[in-house]
């Protein structure tokens, strides 16, 4: 049997047998650690807290309330069932017109109502995952490449390239300019790829960014649109976090930008989903919104490979066309995200952990460079293993986002309740204390090393406004009496 199995595996395709699913990376190993030992406040208080999953659970109560108030939408009443016949048999890959209309309206609302969308351009797909892949299938052939500013979503590699054969060419961004995407960096990556005989078919941007939680400003977007227009390549905008913007600056979406620009709309494609903005990943609703007629046309035909269940379409059509509900939901969700972000980052500040200032997303881009023993990706992995296995927090290391600078970690904060956040913060505090001891020992060993890491630290501190002002540790809230900070060698170094 065993021999027949191994013989048989030879019969499988490259896709089935290669490693391009990427699930052997730390990002997924962390998930496995969580799966094996999940935290529960009473039943398993020592378990791993899942902070690697960008899931938005802060406003479920509103959704639940709506479903209970509108049983018709999910056929839970006699009236609802009347609609059932037409729904059960509906398998047109265009989707229900009401559903597409509701999605178009929602997309507009999620972007502050500053732009509108045409329901006829809404193409359905199986989650943002399916949507991303679908766009790649439509735009690129095996071997073609897309530029993606790093750090970027870990599963891109798999979603964009596994079955399509498309390659990713990272555009490296780092903390020296707060991970901003510059036209120069994009241009350089493009030229480099070209010199290596790689055919670049386009650029993919995630706005708001996952993992950074930042949004792109209008100037950057304009310069990127100009760039892709000049090169005549595609621009795919992954805007699945559009409605998670919780503080200023205001969100600028690509639609808004191209409205005022002279550009070829055939090059612009948006990927959207309800998984983040509404917190509905289980519903598997992904959307491709393309300004290119061919992509709309072909994408629809490809929808068959990942259609949203008609029952779900029906339910969402009624839910999302309920304007009062949507407005209330979006406002509340944004408010709660802001609060959660504030609580979490304040907790980090109290122990002297800095992070990238952000205004969106379900996560925080945490700077633990000063806790690294080596400023290398290996050093990052060492720390990450401590965090997952000992501190028992599943956070995602920067390397899984292809971040070129070691020491950054993405921490998701919207998939848990307030109490769990407190537990997580407590554990982070413990981590800092523990690492501090280790660092002190290391410092005794090598003063030269300390000097180097000091340099790095002041470098990193420029990412925070209050530190830029040179008040760093003097700011009162950072001097919490519980904070171990003033005693750490790093603080001494800064001051």
């Amino acid at each position: 049997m065993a021999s027949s199995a191994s013989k048989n595996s030879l019969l499988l395709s490259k896709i089935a047998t290669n490693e391009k699913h990427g699930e052997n990376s730390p990002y997924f190993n962390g998930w496995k650690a969580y799966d094996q030992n999940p935290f529960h406040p009473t039943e398993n208080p020592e378990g791993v807290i899942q902070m690697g999953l960008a899931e938005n659970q802060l406003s479920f109560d509103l959704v639940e309330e709506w479903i209970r108030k509108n049983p018709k939408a999910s056929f839970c009443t006699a009236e609802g069932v009347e609609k059932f016949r037409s729904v059960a048999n509906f398998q047109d890959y265009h989707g229900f017109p009401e559903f597409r209309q509701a999605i178009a309206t929602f997309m507009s609302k999620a972007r502050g109502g500053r732009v509108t969308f045409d329901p006829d351009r809404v193409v359905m797909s199986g989650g943002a995952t399916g949507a991303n892949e679908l766009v790649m299938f439509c735009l690129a052939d095996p071997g073609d490449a897309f530029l993606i500013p790093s750090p970027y979503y870990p599963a891109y590699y798999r979603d964009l390239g596994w079955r399509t054969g498309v390659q990713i060419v990272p555009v490296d961004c780092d903390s020296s300019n707060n991970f901003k995407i510059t036209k120069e960096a994009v241009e350089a990556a493009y030229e480099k790829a070209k010199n290596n005989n790689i055919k670049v078919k386009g650029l993919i941007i995630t706005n708001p960014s996952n993992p950074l939680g930042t949004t792109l400003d209008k100037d950057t977007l304009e310069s990127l649109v100009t760039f892709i227009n000049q090169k005549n390549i595609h621009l795919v905008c992954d805007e699945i976090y559009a409605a998670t913007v919780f503080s200023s600056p205001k969100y600028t979406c690509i639609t808004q930008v191209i409205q005022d620009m002279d550009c070829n709309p055939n090059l612009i494609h948006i990927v959207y989903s309800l998984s983040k903005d509404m917190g509905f990943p289980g519903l598997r609703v992904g959307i491709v919104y393309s300004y290119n007629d061919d992509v709309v046309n072909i994408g629809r035909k490809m929808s068959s490979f990942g259609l949203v269940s008609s029952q779900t379409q029906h339910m969402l059509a009624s839910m999302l066309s309920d304007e009062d509900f949507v407005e209330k939901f979006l406002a509340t969700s944004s408010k709660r995200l802001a609060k959660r972000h504030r609580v979490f980052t304040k907790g980090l500040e109290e122990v002297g952990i800095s992070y990238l200032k952000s205004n969106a997303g379900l996560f925080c881009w945490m700077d633990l460079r000063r806790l690294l023993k080596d400023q290398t990706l290996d050093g990052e992995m060492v720390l990450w293993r401590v965090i997952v296995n000992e501190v028992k927090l599943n956070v995602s290391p920067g390397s899984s986002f292809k971040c070129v600078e070691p020491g950054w970690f993405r921490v998701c904060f919207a998939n848990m309740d307030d109490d769990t956040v407190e537990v997580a913060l407590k554990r982070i505090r413990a981590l800092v204390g523990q690492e501090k001891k280790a660092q002190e020992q290391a410092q005794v060993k090598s003063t030269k090393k300390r000097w180097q890491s000091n340099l790095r630290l002041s470098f990193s501190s420029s990412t925070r406004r209050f530190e830029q002002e040179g008040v760093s540790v003097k700011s009162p809230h950072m001097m919490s009496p519980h904070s171990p900070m003033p005693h750490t060698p790093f603080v001494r170094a800064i001051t």
Partner: protein
Amino acid sequence: MTRTRPADPSTNRSKSTGGGGGTTVMRVIVPLQGVVQGRGGLVLGSLIPCALFYFLQLYLKRHRSNPNPPTPPPSPESESEQAGQLVELPVLPRSLSRALLSPRGAGGPVYVSGRANSVLKGGESPYDVGLRKVAEDPYDELGNQNGVIQLGLDENKLSLDLVGDWLVDNAKDAILGGDELGISGIVCYQPLDGLMELKVAVAGFMSQVMGKSVFFDPSQIVLTAGATPAIEILSFCLADSGNAFLVPAPYYPGLDRDVKWRTGVEIIPVPCRSADKFNLSITALDRAFNQAKKRGLKVRGIIISNPSNPVGSLYSRESLYNLLDFAREKNIHIISNEIFSGSMHGSEEFVSMAEIVESEDLDRNRVHIVYGLSKDLSLPGFRAGAIYSYNKNVLAAAKKLTRFSSISSPSQRLLISMLSDTKFIRKFIDTSRERLRAMYLKFVTGLNQLGIECTKSNGGFSCWADMSGLIRSYSEKGEFELWDRLLNVAKLNVTPGSSCHCIEPGWFRFCFTTLTEKDIPVVMERIRKISETCKSHS
């Protein structure tokens, strides 16, 4: 967003009007096109021998009235779509963006992928045209009596009322799963290859519809958003781009798209003949395999549909054993598509590939079954499909691939409750089969009365009718003409055999499960009218 619409595509549809100026002239002039149009540039021009220039001048002198060769000949007149011209000729999509390119652009068209282009250029198949016509002008007994009647889509509306009734009685908690489950059990991330409870329920349902002789193990199930992605995922897992599957023809028109389009995998049809009642012969299979090999194609498996769609016939136990022997001998996979296994209306017994495999200890690894609830539970909208495989590696890969096409959780919850209600399911299966049988008999009797014979069918939603007596020329063209008249004169959307890759002309697939009994006389009357005009012509 009107500004985003590209320029009127009609101006770009250069339908290669050709012909015009006489072929000998064309032959001479073609090598010189580059020069005449300035496309080749001066460099190229200077390379052309002087003698040819002289000839060209001579030619131009003589044919001054003849304008330049066929550069853009996009005469909108040639677009005039008569009713007969249904299959749109390939279009050239590339120029559509040119008009919109900004002046500072790099120039050149926007390229979509080769996959996208293949479809853009391929135009619509008769199968697609028919579906579109129904969508544009659907028959309605009261509202639109002259509309197109749908006989081209294999969905089952005969027993939907039963499911509706069940929902009235039970659905209250089916979505939110009562109070204990709550909303986060629905909208949050769930296992992408399906909830375990649903796998258990589907496994139970499969045993039930397939005659209870086989036990299906839920851990061997991967759930997908419909049978379409299930088949595609298996293609991705079992074959590389450029490899091939053998498929007995006639086969379901959508299979080409499902198997080939995005995977780059080929299908080699294995012709089955009316003389054999369209049953697959191992000889034909062997011949196809060897021919593929000669062409340098690597065959990775066989895809069968049992019951067959469109024929409705079943594979006998013996033929399944033969198939497995063949697969073993060639060391290839078998994908058995059994999505109609619960929709039996004949007297013969359905034998699942699973039953064959269970009886043999070896070789399970090469067998993969596709199942779905679209047909047997008549819920295509719910997008619930399943891969049932004996191969651990395939299951592992397929599980990962379901991230691109998993089932929405509210639908999973609803299906769990529905399938777990065994009393309801039993009643549903029985009633559904009864109605299917009644409808099948009525429909086939109607056709027989018009002198149209069908192959003996035991399952599925369609009958496979021999209308070769009604076609004017015994060829694909003759079949196409009849199909065109059925669609545009009789307003019946049926599927021509050629769309199913049938090598014998004149066969048609009629799906009868979207009709009500009252519709049958209307359909028969429309066919009668057509058949009379056919006969009067011949």
